[in-house]
């Protein structure tokens, strides 16, 4: 609510800045726009920027620092013996305080109750302080801007410099997102690797991330050997690619080399629909239709098929990946120069001979790039496996068994309520880091291969 009011006030002041700036410029020029070194409206925008940008910067800094400042102030106000607690316990205490504030309860412990009250008073006065600060910055900015306005001011150039800077900043958001991903994953993963050795995580063969509720509980120490999880991911990805690679590649070949133009115009968008279906729908389809079908089919053959078989999840995932493979292969095939086709036809090769022996080898790098991107999709796909694959970490290569995947474990570990610092939640970030690294490597290789391939025929 207060944010909304702040925003409205800020926007109103910005608009006022625009009008004032324009008016002042015109007044200084004696009402003759020709005497100004830029169009009047640029002076308006110039002042408006002076109003808007500093205020937004202050707001951003405030919102970024508020939690840590509050933390420092509240913790600083605690009695010394509480401040002397180990970091982890202090963290727990602080989240207790925040919970109490959020729920509006008063804890029994008087020291903590005082801290809660402290927190409340701080966070109650915060908006006032913020409002006053923002207003002051806004007015000061506007004042400076207005003073700087003169007929000689090259307002357009100044405005364009600022806009250009804004454009530059927006383009860097992608970089900051990547940095954010890397840092957040790395930070939590490192904390995890302090609890569980990285070698055990990577090569251990037992995965049962339950943490003990009671210390004397049997088998609840939590084992974090992610080997079976990686193996499960690999198994499902292999199944998915076993469906997606041939079907996607063959459909791409058919559409690029055989289908008449009209049929292609219909078939291509139809296949693209497969890429547009939300993965949760595939997951529902896999769990509701495909898994029981495979189970029934298997048992009619006398096979013992788990109800959450890797085959069901993998096959449906493969269908989802078909359009990725087919559209990238299609591009790769289309990029093969026609002279190679003619060369083969000119020797008397049939169409399929030309495709298999000349076009496909020529298009291979592009196709491989597409397949790698497909594998990366398969590894990172979440909803299908969450809904149709299992939770138990079985180390098996049998597609009729239930296996679990990295993404399934991330979801399972992080949904539901638990302490954020437990090994269980941190394990999710370690898995996330592995997922990010593997898919990143696959993507980089794939993009590199595809790009090199394009250059080859340009």
């Amino acid at each position, binding site marked *: 609510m207060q944010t909304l009011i702040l925003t409205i006030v800020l926007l109103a002041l910005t608009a006022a800045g625009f009008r004032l700036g324009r008016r002042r410029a015109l007044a200084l020029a004696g009402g003759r726009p020709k005497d100004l070194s830029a169009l009047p409206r640029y002076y308006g925008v110039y002042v408006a920027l002076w109003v808007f940008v500093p205020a937004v910067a202050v707001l951003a800094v405030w919102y970024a620092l508020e939690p840590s400042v509050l933390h420092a102030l509240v913790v600083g106000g605690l009695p010394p013996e509480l401040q002397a607690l180990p970091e982890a316990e202090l963290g727990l205490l602080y989240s207790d305080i925040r919970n109490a504030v959020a729920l509006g309860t008063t804890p029994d412990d008087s020291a903590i109750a005082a801290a809660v009250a402290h927190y409340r008073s701080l966070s109650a006065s915060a908006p006032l302080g913020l409002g006053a600060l923002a207003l002051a910055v806004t007015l000061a900015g506007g004042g400076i801007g207005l003073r700087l306005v003169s007929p000689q001011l090259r307002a357009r150039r100044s405005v364009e410099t600022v806009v250009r800077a804004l454009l530059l900043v927006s383009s860097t958001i992608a970089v900051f997102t990547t940095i954010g991903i890397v840092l957040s994953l790395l930070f939590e993963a490192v904390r995890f690797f302090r609890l569980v050795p990285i070698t055990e995580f990577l090569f251990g063969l037992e995965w049962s991330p339950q943490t003990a509720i009671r210390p004397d509980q049997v088998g609840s120490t939590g084992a974090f050997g992610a080997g079976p999880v990686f193996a499960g991911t690999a198994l499902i990805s292999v199944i998915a690619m076993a469906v997606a690679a041939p079907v996607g590649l063959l459909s791409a070949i058919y559409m690029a080399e055989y289908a008449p133009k009209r049929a292609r115009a219909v078939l291509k968008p139809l296949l693209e629909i497969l890429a547009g279906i939300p993965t949760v729908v595939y997951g529902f389809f896999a769990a509701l239709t495909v898994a029981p079908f495979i189970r029934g089919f298997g048992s009619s053959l006398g096979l013992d098929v788990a109800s959450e078989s890797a085959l069901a999840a993998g096959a449906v995932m493969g269908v989802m990946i078909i359009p990725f493979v087919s559209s990238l292969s299609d591009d790769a095939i289309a990029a093969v120069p026609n002279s190679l086709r003619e060369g083969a036809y000119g020797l008397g090769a049939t169409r399929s001979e030309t495709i298999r022996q000349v076009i496909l080898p020529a298009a291979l790098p592009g196709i491989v790039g597409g397949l790698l991107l497909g594998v990366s999709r398969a590894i990172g796909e979440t*909803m299908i496996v969450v809904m149709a694959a299992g939770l138990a970490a079985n180390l098996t290569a049998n597609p009729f068994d239930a296996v679990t995947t990295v993404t399934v474990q991330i979801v399972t570990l992080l949904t539901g309520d638990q302490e954020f610092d437990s090994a269980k939640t941190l394990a999710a970030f370690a898995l996330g880091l592995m997922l990010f690294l593997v898919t990143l490597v696959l993507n980089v290789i794939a993009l590199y291969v595809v790009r090199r391939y394009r250059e080859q025929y340009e």
Partner: protein
Amino acid sequence: MSDTAPARPATAEAVARGLRRRYAAEQRFRLYGMAAIGFALAVLTILFATVVANGWSAFRQTYIQLDLPLEAADIDPDGTRDPAVLSRADYEGLVKKTLRGMFPDVTNRREKRELYDLVSSAAAFDLRDAVLEDPSLVGGTFQLRVPASDDLDMYMKGYIRADSPEDERRISDRQIARIEALREQGRVETGFNLGFFISGDSREPELAGIAGAALGSLWTMLVVLILSFPLGVMAAIYLEEFAPRNRWTDIIEVNINNLAAVPSIVFGLLGLAVFLNFFGLPRSAPLVGGMVLALMTLPTVIIAGRAALQAVPPSIREAALGLGASRMQMVGGHVLPLAMPGMLTGAIIGMARALGETAPLLMIGMVAFIVDLPKGPLDAATALPVQIFLWADSPERAFVERTSAATIVLLVFLICMNLGAVLLRRKFERRW
């Protein structure tokens, strides 16, 4: 191959010998291609068919017509008509009493329970709302149409069959007899299931609706739009029109391409670690969901935006620059308006992808059981795909129907968005 006597017939003969086999291989290969496309299209058809076949019946719901005698003694013994008193009355008891009155032969507890189970627990609430709205009803007999329980609904829709063994179905022989009796009295009817579109989530399938999830999706998408479109457009303009060809620009470009292929769940982890834990934003809020999905959508918008800018011919830029416009004026006044439809198309396609995205939302807690409709981007909410995920996990048969119905709604939204993008592209597609 000898130099003097060209082995011409040999070549022709050898070729002719192999022709049959080679054309058979040609046919086979062609057939593989058709089979592959056929397989993909068959799965697509089966998927749509299953969803529609399972889901269409959820748009209708079975209702039971009850004649409720609203005796003043039961509801408002003092005759005050005070809303506080009216709202405290035992409406559940009234509904039960009415049901007992309709079947006087029911005596033992178990049979009574089965009888009550035919009507949704919403009946009492509906009755209370009706009385509170119009207190003059008290004293008369009130005709109320209440939703039937999910089991009765399933029976009426034919998902539970009377000829299946009794212990394998969730509805007993006695209950079926009662339903048939009610039907003969004309008290059972099937109508459009408005509740599905205007209610939030519920544990009772017959009361569960998609409005809460849809609103959550709406708020999320608003945030995505507000964040990703301007940022994406600005980034595209910078990279296409202003960026110098240097290392830094290369880094940005590589980053954008890679980000487009990062698994969505990783964005969820980013949101959890940065937005929730570091900045302390509220859990389950569409604001955070929107921020995460905006980051995910950004590469799509930027890539589409750059393509749209590239499609504007240099002649237009040169004309503007030739008239003395600055680069910025050229872009803002001439290039951007021409590229806008293409950018919008890209944005719509990106939004459609974000609308169907589930995994990152699970990470930031938009997966809770939330009954209330979210009134703003800071209220706890789910989203349509998350609702599908939640319902898909529920054991009741009636939830299968609703999951499918929610899927139909989601797919309809997605089809509309993609269709809109295609039409937009058609309308503004220019041949320069």
